[in-house]
């Protein structure tokens, strides 16, 4: 259906009632859904336009955690002083998505709920153990990022729920890096996208997270690789070892964009490079 009927509620409670009544596909910035509608990949009975819901907007912090409304656009992430100070890697990820036109409309909530394995902000969210607040007429609940994507484009979100906001802890000892490899410099879906995050405890790396996109049906945490880095002071030997573990741990595929061989190799090499840059050797 090219132009399904749409409702644009003015309040969250109304949106949740509509969502509960069934058959509504939510639209945020439209940069994913509009493409799917045009290609007949999505054929919803009706669309729920979230764009007027003030409750889903805004970036704020209380010093302990950062809260990002689901409707926050990539441009807003890039311009947010809070994000810049607390999770620059997320702004960097937002800057690699599409180009200005897409960044002005695409939202973090859309990126999360579209659940593409190549979603560029998703590895960063995994790497900082982000929490997702979901709401329905039944109430609110929180799901951890690492539990949210359950299979290829499958979410822990139920049919009557909406994503309200994303939260992550403020941690001044945590360092997070991001790198995306695409076919070209702008407007490119990633072939490999990686986020590396760790706390530095006097030079020793703790609570290491290595998250990747485009190498599995969902964004993933590379737990064996994390274990190889946990409690180390990464130097060349550790980096070589971690890169090797990562290469063995992931099972990427061949697709229109790239090959399994390339993805495996580049994931390892990019990790090695990030480790070197963070380690300073």
């Amino acid at each position, binding site marked *: 259906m090219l132009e399904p009927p749409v409702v644009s509620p003015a309040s969250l409670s*109304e949106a949740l009632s509509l969502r509960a009544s069934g058959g509504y596909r939510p639209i945020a910035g439209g940069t994913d859904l509009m493409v799917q509608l045009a290609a007949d990949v999505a054929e919803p009975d009706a669309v729920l336009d979230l764009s007027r819901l003030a409750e889903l907007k805004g970036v704020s912090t209380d010093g302990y955690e950062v809260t990002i409304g689901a409707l926050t656009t990539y441009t807003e992430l890039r311009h947010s002083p809070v994000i810049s100070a607390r999770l620059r890697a997320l702004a960097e990820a937002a800057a690699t998505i599409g180009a200005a036109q897409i960044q002005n409309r695409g939202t973090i909530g859309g990126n999360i709920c579209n659940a593409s394995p190549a979603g560029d902000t998703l590895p960063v969210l995994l790497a900082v153990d982000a929490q997702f607040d979901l709401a329905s007429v039944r109430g609110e609940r929180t799901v951890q990022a690492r539990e949210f994507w359950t299979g290829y484009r499958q979410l822990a979100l139920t049919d009557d729920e909406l994503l309200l906001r994303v939260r992550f802890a403020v941690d001044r000892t945590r360092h997070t890096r991001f790198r995306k490899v695409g076919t070209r410099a702008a407007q490119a879906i990633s072939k490999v996208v990686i986020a590396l995050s760790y706390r530095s405890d006097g030079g020793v790396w703790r609570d290491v997270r290595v998250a990747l996109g485009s190498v599995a049906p969902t964004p993933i945490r590379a737990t064996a690789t994390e274990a190889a880095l946990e409690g180390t002071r990464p130097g060349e030997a550790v980096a070589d070892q971690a890169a090797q573990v990562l290469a063995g741990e992931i099972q990427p595929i061949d697709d229109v964009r790239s090959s399994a061989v390339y993805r495996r190799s580049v994931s390892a090499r990019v990790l090695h490079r990030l480790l070197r840059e963070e380690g300073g050797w």
Partner: protein
Amino acid sequence: MTTVRDTSEASAIYHFTVNGEPREAAVPGMRRLLDVLREDLGLTGTKEGCGEGECGACTVIVDDLVVDSCLVPVCQVEGADIRTVEGLSDAEARALSPLQQAFLERGGAQCGICTPGMLMAAQAYLDDGGPANEADIREAIAGNLCRCTGYTKIIDAIEAAAIARDEAIEDDESEDEDEE
């Protein structure tokens, strides 16, 4: 704000301004802004190149931000201020804008199909104070594909327009100073 609802039988009426003029469209809410502009309002300056937000030929400015109008459902521009290529030149004096003039002089348009979208991306950049600096200009138009020019003369034209804008601002400021 009230909820706006439509069904495929009864369209809602959406109101917005286009190039400063109030307009409305009684169409299904999921109708693309691109189609509203081209077909319902007869403003064919904005083009469709891909329908999937990759080429930027459909770029318009909505509330001061560039967007791909092929990806914007009209229900989401209720009350918005929309600018298209038709609004760039001065309708009264029938003169090209400084940006259009720069494109004309420097060969920024060849086949012209990417040009309206390109101009809107460039105009938004200039309005936002974007500097006359090649790297920033390249990023500002990264969402606008051109197959004819290699981008070289487009960048030259935007750079020239940015310089002209800065000089005009300086001129205004020095006039203000004179008046003080």
